[in-house]
Every structure is written in structure tokens, then in C-alpha cells.
């Protein structure tokens, strides 16, 4: 018994199954991070009460900038990997995947260093609601980076076998993995300016 449309598209929808699956999953992830961003706004508004406490800022924005470039770079490399796979340039596919996974490691190392720096200065999630939401959101994001890296890593390492058996199917799976990866990049595109650059500035005119 075969499940149809796992590799080729269904004629009337024009889509193959996993493509719909991943977009639906990403929709749920939008809501997850949306809920957390709502929490950020709510907590920031609530923190206006005591202006003597500085809420936000204090993050290493230079490192954040580097991480942003790293993730955007990895977004490009993963889609180049897909493109090379579609063109059946297996070696180039391998190279771009390696770059992507390398970028993810670099991101996690920098993030780990940032966390470590905070912890050794006695700053923990419970230090203030800013740090609560910062650690929770960036932590959850980092878990998604790890998850994405594992999936992409599997395609990279097992790639040769999968490529030999059904290259189009591998291309589809890399596309699906890539979509997830782009979403991870997307979340960071918002996390970076909000947490690293803007979080200490008041949200409402009244607070001036």
C-alpha cells in the first residue's frame, strides 16, 4: 500500500504531502512564538511601574549582530544546497549543507558564550521578567536551531544513500528542512532587534 503524493505533486492542489505538512507545522510555530512575543509586550508594559529598574538592554548587541549575520548566511547556504541538489550537483550540495550546519554550530557557540557570561555575572532567568522572557525565548529558539541542525545533519550525513535511491525525494526533504530552517532564521530576525536593541526603550509615550 502506497501513500500517494509523497514525492510528486497532486495535480489539483499542485503540492506534495510533506510540503503542506511543514507549512502547517510552521503555522503552529508562528502561534507559539507569537504567544511568547505577546508575553514580552505584556511584561514590558507591566514593568513601567518602577522606572528605577532598568528593564531590558544589557545584552551584547555586537555578538547579536554577528549571530544575525551567521543565521542569514546559513539561510542562504541551505537554499543553495537545495538548488544544487535540484541541479544534481551532489558535491556542491554536500558543501553547502556542511556550511549550514557549521553556521548553526557557530550560532550555538556564540549563544552559549552569551548565556555563560550572564550566568557568571549572577544574572539568571529569575533576575527580572526581562531576563525571564529573554532566556525563555532565546532558549526555545536555540532548541529549534538544535532540532533543525539535527535534521539537516541527517540529510547531510545520510545524503549519499538517499541521493542514490531517489534524488528528487531527497531534494524535497531538504526543501522541507530548509523551510524549517528559514523559519528559525525568521524568528531570530525579530528576536534580535526587539531584545538586543529596543528592549530598554519605553513602549508607550506616557512613560517618557
Amino acid at each position: 500500500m502506497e501513500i500517494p503524493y509523497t514525492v510528486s505533486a497532486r495535480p489539483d492542489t499542485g503540492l506534495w504531502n510533506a510540503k503542506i505538512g511543514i507549512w502547517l507545522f510552521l503555522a503552529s510555530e508562528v502561534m507559539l512564538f507569537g504567544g511568547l512575543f505577546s508575553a514580552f509586550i505584556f511584561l514590558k508594559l507591566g514593568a513601567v511601574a518602577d522606572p528605577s529598574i532598568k528593564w531590558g538592554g544589557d545584552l551584547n548587541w555586537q555578538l547579536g549582530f554577528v549571530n544575525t549575520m551567521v543565521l542569514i548566511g546559513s539561510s542562504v547556504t541551505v537554499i543553495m544546497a537545495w538548488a544544487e541538489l535540484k541541479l544534481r550537483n551532489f558535491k556542491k550540495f554536500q558543501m553547502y549543507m556542511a556550511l549550514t550546519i557549521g553556521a548553526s554550530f557557530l550560532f550555538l557557540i556564540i549563544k552559549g558564550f552569551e548565556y555563560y557570561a550572564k550566568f557568571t555575572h549572577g544574572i539568571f532567568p529569575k533576575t527580572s521578567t526581562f531576563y525571564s522572557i529573554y532566556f525563555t525565548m532565546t532558549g526555545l529558539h536555540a532548541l529549534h536551531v538544535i532540532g533543525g541542525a539535527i535534521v539537516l545533519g541527517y540529510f547531510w550525513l545520510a545524503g549519499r544513500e538517499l541521493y542514490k535511491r531517489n534524488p528528487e525525494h531527497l531534494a524535497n526533504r531538504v526543501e522541507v528542512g530548509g523551510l524549517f530552517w528559514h523559519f528559525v532564521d525568521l524568528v531570530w530576525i525579530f528576536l534580535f532587534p526587539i531584545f538586543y536593541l529596543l528592549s530598554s526603550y519605553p513602549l508607550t509615550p506616557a512613560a517618557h
Partner: protein
Amino acid sequence: MKPLDHEETDHSPAGDGHAHANEHAHGHDDHHEPGFWQKYIFSTDHKIIGIQYGFTALVFMLIGFALMILMRWQLANPGTAFPVIGSWFGETYMPNGVMTPEFYNSLGAMHGTIMVFLAVVPLAFGAFGNYVMPLQIGAPDMAFPKLNMASYWAYFVGGVIMFASFFVPGGAAKSGWTNYPPLSGIADNPMFKPDLYHVFFNGQTLWLVAMIFVITSSLLGSVNFITTVIQLRAKGLTWMRLPFFVWAQFISAFLLLLAFPPLEAAAVMQLMDRLAGTSFFMPTGLVVDGTAVDALSGGGSPLLYQHLFWFLGHPEVYVLILPALGIVSEIIANNTRKPLFGYRMMVYSVVVLGFLSFIVWAHHMYLTGMGTKISMFFQTTTMLISIPSVIIITSLLISLWGGSIRFNIPMLFATAFIPMFGIGGLTGLPLAFNATDLHLHDTYYVIGHFHYVVAPGTIFALFAGIYYWFPKMTGRHMNTFLGHLHFWPSLILMNGVFFPMFIQGMRGFHRRWYDGGQVWEFTQDLLWLNQVMSISAFLLAIAQIPFMINLFMSIKFGKKVTSDNPWNATTLEWATPTPPGHGNFLKEPVVYRGPYEYSVPGAPTDFSMQNEPDPETLQPAAAAELPTAKH
């Protein structure tokens, strides 16, 4: 089922989970028989998974019911020992068989949690959706069979953790099924009872962890359902030819997909509050038992939790009702021998209902101090959402008109559903208005309202569905006499349990009172209703025994069906062998007509199955096209 012509054969191991990776040097063909574990325990077949969901959910429903029986004794006879089994619960929870207030709270919180998250939704969506939906769309299985299996096991693990939470020091979660902070933050907190509680193994924390598993299960399931309906419909099965049951499950899947994640976020944040000392939800200046708890709390917002909870909470109640409306629709069309009235309007209504359900949530929060503008917004959207709801139930009612009604057991439950859901729905209206909700919020009126919708509403529909699809699953009918013994007392007693709640609620009886309200002057003349409700509840429990006997007995001894389509129904699940085998259909079904072609003028029989082409003698129906353009 042979692959379609243009389909590239899926060679990957992640495709259909069998055969290709078979390294055995056997002489026979690819499809070697899976062993017991792969066939029945770790199956990827949607029918097995549906049955797994079904039985697990029914067990949890029984547990949830049992918790309520304990509570109802306490409410009718506050401070008295529970007869016979009172001593079973130990000295901490029921010293001398008398329930402590904390244990009552645990029972209440867990009754709600178990019924909503572990019983009704897994049965309505997980069990019926999994088993019936792929059959009704002519599919060989779900789009992602392995994901389907993962989703069941995630639910199972979550359920086990929930159940285990009763047995940790301090007992199960006890801050309502809603788990509002700051109460939930200080409950089961090591800061207050360091000897009794564990930082991780306490009821509230385990509740949160279990929910993460249950939510994950839900998300995986939703992705599967939506993709399957979009991609695996049979040839000729256009959107407006789908049985309403499939539409209902489809919309429910979207609700689960988009509404659960904010609750997952809230659960993570509450866990951080408990385990990492954060204060997402714990406000500044919190005082517990006269002591300020600055170490525990500061800067957080309890209101934030409520928004995130109810953002899920409201779509969740539509997930509770939509599959039931779907089941009832199928059974009513089948047993009136005529098409559903207003099918098209019902479809539009269910889509609009799904959309609106995302923007009504704060009608659960009218008493949080929200201002008039925002209250008015939610009031308006809540009133609007009653429209599609009424359209659907009215269509079902009108569908009975002029029908040749067969009152078999499924039809009894389905017909009873209509007025019961009607009462539940109508009693929601005063709750939708801020002004009247001021009086009714957190009273027994609310409990009466939602129980009418879920208990003689959804659960009756689920019973109907079990009696209806049992012959397809097992090849045998359930016993009719036992069915009557189940139905009639249940109908009467459901009303006995829940109707008095409206009366008590309007008087002002609070929810979650551990003593049934006996200490207040204004409740005294209505306290006798507690007895009425409790006796009805005990008898209702007994009325379920014929059902349980029937269910198990009929698997082995039920009257055998005489055909694959014993109800003479039109939808595709009845075009399979009984029970359907792996791959479901012997040959790929092609659909030629709508889902409810009963009593078509000029047809030889009073029903025409969806996959039945027209003979030349009749007016040709729209032939099956293989659509290639967007439709």
C-alpha cells in the same frame, strides 16, 4: 492500492513504513507479516491508532467520571465519609473516608482536565477522526502514518503522567482545570510545605509536563488530518462532496493547530516560574497567608496567563463540539433517508465558526477588570459566533422534517443531541453578555451550561458514533436492548444532574465550593438540589454499565452484519470490506456524487453510494473529472 499513474514510486523508508527496506531473503513477496508489536501496539495503520485512541480515551472518561462521583457524594453529604471505599484513599486525602478540601480541589481540577484533554477530544478527534475520516475520503491511510503513531504515543505518555500525578506527595494539581496563577504558582510549592513537596514531582508541575506531551500529540495529529483531507481525497471527491463529518474534523484540526501553541507557551512559562524561579505570572506584592512572598514573586502578570490559556480555551470548546456535530450529521442523514438540509450553509457556517472562534476568548475573562471597550469587542464577536452555531443545529433539526426516520440506537442518541445541545447553546447567551455574566460568572450556571453541551451533547454524539460505526469495525451489531437500557436512563439522568445547576447558579452558588454551599444563608432552600444531582449522577454511572457490557460482549457475540453496509449508508467508509484491511479499499474508489444521496427520485434504491456511477437509464450525474486546474 496501486499507485496512480503519474505518481513516482516512493522508495524512501519514510514512505509507507513497509516492504522496501526488507532485507530478508525470503522467497515470498515484499509484504511480510508484521509481528504482534508492530501490528497492534506500534501500528502505523490509522484504524488501529483510532482504536487505540478510542479505548484509551474511554478509560480516561471512566476515570474522570469516577472522580466526579467522589465529588458528588461530598457535595450532597458534605463532611460525611464516602461509603465502602472511602478508606481506600488514604489518610492524607480522605481521613476517615471524609474528603479534605484540597483533595476536593484536586478532584475538580483533574476531572476537568481528564475529561477535556484526555477523554472527549481524543475520542472525538483522535479516535473517530483517525478511524473514519480516511475511510470517508477514500484514502488508504493518513498522509503521515508514522507521525500518526507518534501522536498517539505522545498522548499516551501525557495521560500516564497526568494519572501518575495523583500519586506524588501533595497529590494532583488542584488549581482548577484552568490552573490560574498565582494560585497555581503557590500550590504544590516547596516553599510552603518543604517536607511534603518535591521540586519536580508535584501535581502542578507534572500537570504542566503532561500537557506539553498532550499538546505535542495534538499538533502532530492536526498536521496529519489537514494534509490528509487536502491531499488524499479520492478522485471525484470535491470539497463540496465531502461528508460534513470530514469538514467538521478538518476545521477542528485547524483550531487545534493554531490555538494550542500559545497555551504551550504559557505552560512553558509556568514551568519556568516553578522550576527556574521566574515570575512570568507571579505579581509583585503577593501575600500568602499573611506573609509577603517577594522571593517567589515579582513583576509578573496573572492576566497574561489567562489570555494565553483562553486563547486556546475557547477554540478548544469548538473542538469539543464540532466532531460531535459531524457524527450527528452523518447519522441523521442516514436514518432519515434524506439529504441533510442546508449542507452548503452548514459548510460555510463551520468555516466561519472556526475563524470567529479565535477572537472571542476574553468572554471567559469579563470579571478580570477589563474595560468597556474591550469587553464590547468580545461581546460582539461572541454574539456573532452564535449565528453559525445556530445555523448548523437548526439545519440538523430541519433535516428531520419529512424524513423516514429509523429510530435505531445511534439515531436515538443523535436525535437527543439536538435539544440537549440546544439547551447548552442557549444557556450560553447570558454568559456572552458582560452585564449578565457579572452575576453568573463562576457560578453553577456556567457548569450547567458547558456540561449540557459536552455531556448530553458531545458525549451522546460519541455514543451514537460508537453504535453506528461499531458494525464496520467489528462486523457485528451492538445489542439493541442493552442500547435502550443505556440510552433512556442516560437521557433522563443527564438532565437530572445538570438542569438543577442552572437554578443553583442563578441563585448564586459558586463553582468549586467544597461543601456544596451549605454554610451560606442564601443557599439553604436550594441545597436539596445537591441530593437530586448526586443521586442522578450515581444512577447515571449505573446506566453506563449496559454500555460497557454491550461494547465488549458484542465484539464476540454481537449479531453479525449481513453486508458491508448494514445501515444502507452512502458514504465511502461503507464501501470497504468489514473490517477494512490494510489499505482500506480493494480498488481505488472514484466518487460520482454528493455525500447524502438518499431517496433520489428515480433511483432503484433509497440510497446511492458516493462511489456508485449512474446507470445509463438515469440522467447522467456529473461524471468524475480528474481535476488538473485549481478548483
